């Protein structure tokens, strides 16, 4: 579904991606792990076209992402941002129904609101939340609204950027379960970025570890613990000692 070949990206002198190769199969849940600043978020933004790679090729369903019609391309995606990225000036239901009320297949307001409330219910939020503003919600509720917005238009591919960052362990567990259920239920292809190993085990079919702008290791989640790669072992066990330099 998603093929990434030799992608490079630098910001000034900072070489973030140094030739990333990765394939994500249709309907697969790929989790990308790696330390802060290793280029995970930049990679997602390259796939979405938010950041243009300096070199390399990204194909989605066989199409080069730089040559497709932007609207049709983006209509296939849903994304849950790290901080939620909810629009402050809109109510919760307007956030969730944002895409539904715009573009060629736009729905009338009442119908869009109904769909939004249905999606809110799907992520465990009551209809009363629909008319609140994002600032009135807790961090966990904001993540759920972000998730409802990401799935509102039934996307084929969903990206999750640090879905459990800033949440307590119980809420993180709830979000992980929701993500897994929704991805399976929709048959969507999912790519998740996280540092949270509990999330990795809950969400992933496959795992890829990025280190210094390259994919260091990739494989099924079941094989992750047994891999002899010292970088992966240090990361998944959270050890200070090992080949990955840590600043103290």
């Amino acid at each position: 579904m998603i093929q990434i070949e030799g992608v490079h990206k630098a910001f000034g002198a900072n070489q973030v991606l140094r030739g990333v190769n990765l394939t994500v199969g249709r309907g697969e849940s790929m989790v990308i792990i790696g330390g802060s600043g290793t280029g995970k978020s930049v990679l997602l933004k390259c796939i979405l076209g938010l950041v243009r790679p300096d070199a390399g090729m990204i194909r989605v369903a066989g199409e080069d992402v730089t040559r497709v019609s932007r609207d049709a391309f983006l209509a296939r995606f849903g994304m849950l941002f790290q901080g939620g990225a909810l629009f402050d000036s809109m109510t919760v239901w307007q956030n969730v129904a944002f895409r539904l009320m715009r573009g060629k297949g736009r729905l009338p307001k009442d119908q869009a609101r109904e769909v939004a409330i249905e999606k809110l219910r799907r992520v465990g939020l009551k209809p009363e939340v629909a008319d609140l503003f994002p600032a009135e919600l807790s961090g966990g509720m904001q993540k759920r609204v972000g998730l409802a917005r990401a799935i509102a238009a039934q996307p084929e591919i969903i990206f999750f950027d640090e879905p459990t960052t800033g949440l307590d362990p119980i809420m993180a567990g709830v979000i992980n379960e929701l993500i897994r259920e929704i991805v399976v239920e929709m048959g969507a292809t999912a790519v998740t970025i996280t540092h949270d190993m509990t999330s990795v085990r809950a969400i992933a079919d496959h795992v890829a570890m990025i280190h210094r702008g390259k994919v260091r290791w990739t494989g099924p989640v079941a094989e992750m613990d047994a891999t002899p790669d010292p970088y992966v072992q240090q990361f998944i066990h959270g050890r200070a000692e090992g080949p990955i330099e840590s600043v103290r």
Partner: protein
Amino acid sequence: MSLTAPLAHLGAMVLAALAATGRLALFAGRTLGHLLTPPFYLREFLHACLQIGWLSLPVVGLTAIFTGAALALQIYAGGARFSAEAVVPQIVAIGMTRELGPVLGGLMVAARVASSIAAEIGTMKVTEQIDALVTLSTNPMKYLTVPRVLAATLTVPLLVAVGDAIGVMGGWLVGTERLGFNSATYMKNTIEFLEFWDIGSGLVKGAVFGFIVALMGCYYGMNSGRGAQGVGRATKSAVVAASVAILASNYVLTEVFFSA
């Protein structure tokens, strides 16, 4: 340090300024291009009209009334040096409509609106709301910039018109209550002296200043740096750039409209 170092530093500053001007010009060009092509966001445009036009009315009105009143006092005091106290109504009217109404109105709107637009869009950028718009198949230029620029270009002239009227009334109030002018004569002199282009030129200036204010707010917001400091810097830069651009363009427009 090499003797040429100051020159190199100066050259780098000039190149950076030219590059920034080029980026701003491209941004303005893209904004104008998007003005003409769908989709159009009517709700966002009306909301921007309310925020920029209607809600700026109190500050523009207060600025105008005090400016008109002070102008009347100054012209009276200055005119007394060569026995020309009687020209207060005419000079207040022409001063307000041609210069002070549009320029002070524009500067007040710059302080209020450019800062608010830059802070709002800058915050949206650092909280990834702009990226979220893109992933939801919405062009941020069309959705955020075009409605604000269009609204400011259309509503600031209206604010200037209201400010002109309030400024003239400020002069009238001081003229009749403090300086002993007859009320009817003051108004008659004002109305008879003013020509259409005195008011029209101020309104055209208002439209240009409105465009500048919203453009600067959007440009610096969209290019905001990370974190609270980045948004703060974007806000400050938007107000400074809008104010300087208003004063510079005011001179150019005055040359174009009134040079003999």
